[in-house]
């Protein structure tokens, strides 16, 4: 018993507990911020002004949205499967939060000497982090598929079926691009992969993997967008064809949970991309102990690209999506993997 008390009151434990709480809140807030950013960016690209009424420049719009969503009535179709209908949004949101667990977002720090030993700015330093993220992300599809099935509605079911077909098709290419980077770095720990990208070539080109593995980055980006069901791959919720796809029958906070999951997944995919290809928290001008500022800048840029793509590219046709996934992305990723393997083996890159 005394052991537990000393353990719980040790600075390291308190620091980790605080870190988990901070990351949890930050992810929730990121969803709200993304809703606002999405609407503002969309408005900017369509020469509108976007939300302006609530708060200065409409900044309090997400707060108003959340309050509204809390007070909405929760509807459940009579023919829906009660248990799975309730579980589906929970699965979605849980996997979304869980996937951020092994993602590092800053160099080890002692918080200005508050801690006896430096602590990595990540929740769980797993030595197979890349695979864990991949596994948890592949669990996310169940939330969508079950929502589609449990709603007992044609549009929902079609959305769920499309989602599972899409996830299966793009997961392979996603995994291949991850494997390429893992093979190149010779490590599966995201922390080590980030540290390998430290430094510069010729004094000014940062040693980021995006410059060595542009194909892997392209495949990762495409598959990542498809995995998070964003335009131009947003088939599970294609409004024009499926009303709202898998979440047609959802309302109130259950509906909000699906959207929270979608935005958190975007943040996670972007964070993984930053770590794998953009050098994580390494960057010029900012001292290493404030590396998380670089991380946030890169993250914000990738998230902006997400929105940018959504309002620039139209949605693919469904058969185009399938043939792109199987006939372009997967062969490309496989060839890239083989070439990288040969390079690592024979030239020791």
């Amino acid at each position: 018993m005394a052991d537990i008390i000393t353990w719980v009151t040790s600075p390291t434990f308190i620091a980790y507990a605080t870190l988990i709480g901070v990351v949890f809140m930050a992810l929730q807030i990121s969803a709200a911020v993304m809703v606002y950013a999405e609407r503002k960016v969309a408005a900017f690209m369509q020469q509108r002004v976007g939300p302006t009424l609530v708060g200065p420049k409409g900044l309090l719009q997400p707060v108003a949205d959340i309050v509204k969503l809390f007070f909405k009535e929760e509807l459940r179709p009579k023919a829906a499967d009660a248990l799975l209908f309730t579980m589906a949004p929970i699965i979605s949101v849980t996997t979304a939060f869980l996937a951020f667990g092994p993602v590092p977002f800053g160099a080890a720090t002692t918080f200005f000497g508050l801690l006896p030993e430096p602590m990595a700015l990540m929740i769980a330093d797993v030595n197979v982090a890349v695979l864990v993220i991949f596994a948890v992300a592949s669990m996310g599809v169940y939330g969508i598929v079950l929502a589609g099935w449990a709603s007992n509605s044609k549009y929902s079911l079609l959305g769920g079926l499309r989602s599972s077909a899409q996830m299966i098709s793009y997961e392979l290419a996603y995994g291949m691009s991850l494997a390429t980077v893992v093979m190149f770095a010779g490590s599966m720990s995201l922390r080590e992969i980030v540290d390998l990208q430290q430094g510069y070539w010729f004094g000014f080109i940062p040693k980021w993997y995006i410059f060595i593995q542009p194909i892997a980055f392209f495949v990762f980006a495409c598959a990542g967008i498809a995995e998070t069901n964003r335009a131009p791959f947003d088939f599970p919720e294609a409004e024009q064809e499926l009303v709202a796809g898998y979440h047609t029958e959802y309302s109130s906070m259950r509906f909000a949970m699906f959207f929270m999951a979608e935005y958190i997944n975007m943040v996670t995919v972007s964070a993984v991309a930053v770590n794998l290809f953009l050098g994580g928290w390494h960057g010029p001008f900012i001292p290493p102990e404030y590396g998380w500022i670089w991380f946030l800048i890169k993250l914000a840029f990738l998230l902006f690209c997400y929105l940018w793509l959504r309002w620039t590219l139209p949605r693919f046709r469904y058969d185009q999506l399938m043939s792109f996934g199987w006939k372009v992305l997967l062969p490309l990723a496989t060839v890239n993997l083989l070439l990288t393997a040969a390079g690592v083996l024979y030239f020791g890159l």
Partner: protein
Amino acid sequence: MLFYLFAGAAVAGALLVVSQRNPVYSVLALIGSFFGLSGLYVLLEAPFVAVVQIIIYAGAIMVLFLFVVMLLNVPREDAAEWDRAHPLYRPMAVRIGGVLALLLALELGWALSRTAGLGGGVADEHPAVSSVAELGRVLFTDYMFAFEVTSILIIVAMVGAVVLAKKEK
């Protein structure tokens, strides 16, 4: 302690798979069972195997299962009328199943009688397979034959599936 938690989850999931009338619930219970197994791998200090188990079985194969179950819209299975008939007059499938269950019980009993004297767990005897490099080395040296045979088997199954699915021209 944790072992019983994970093992219990795996067994409970497996029992739910066969006892559910609704096929979608069966699929979900099987996923739960896989998570229990994956927890056991973590306890054996093989995180790589644990994660790969989740990715391949829970992540890929079960999504396909769920996809097929949903696509075919398999109805709930209700108790058939032969369920109440005398065991000897039930259809062939039930009799074969009965024989297989008996064999499984015998094998289980035999296995338990052999391990009873061992006492120690497997984890104590073998070095932990936590390193991916070590796992790869063992797969391509000591277990080369089994590994290659498995891969050929998978390729044969794949080719067979493509041939079966292909429409006659």
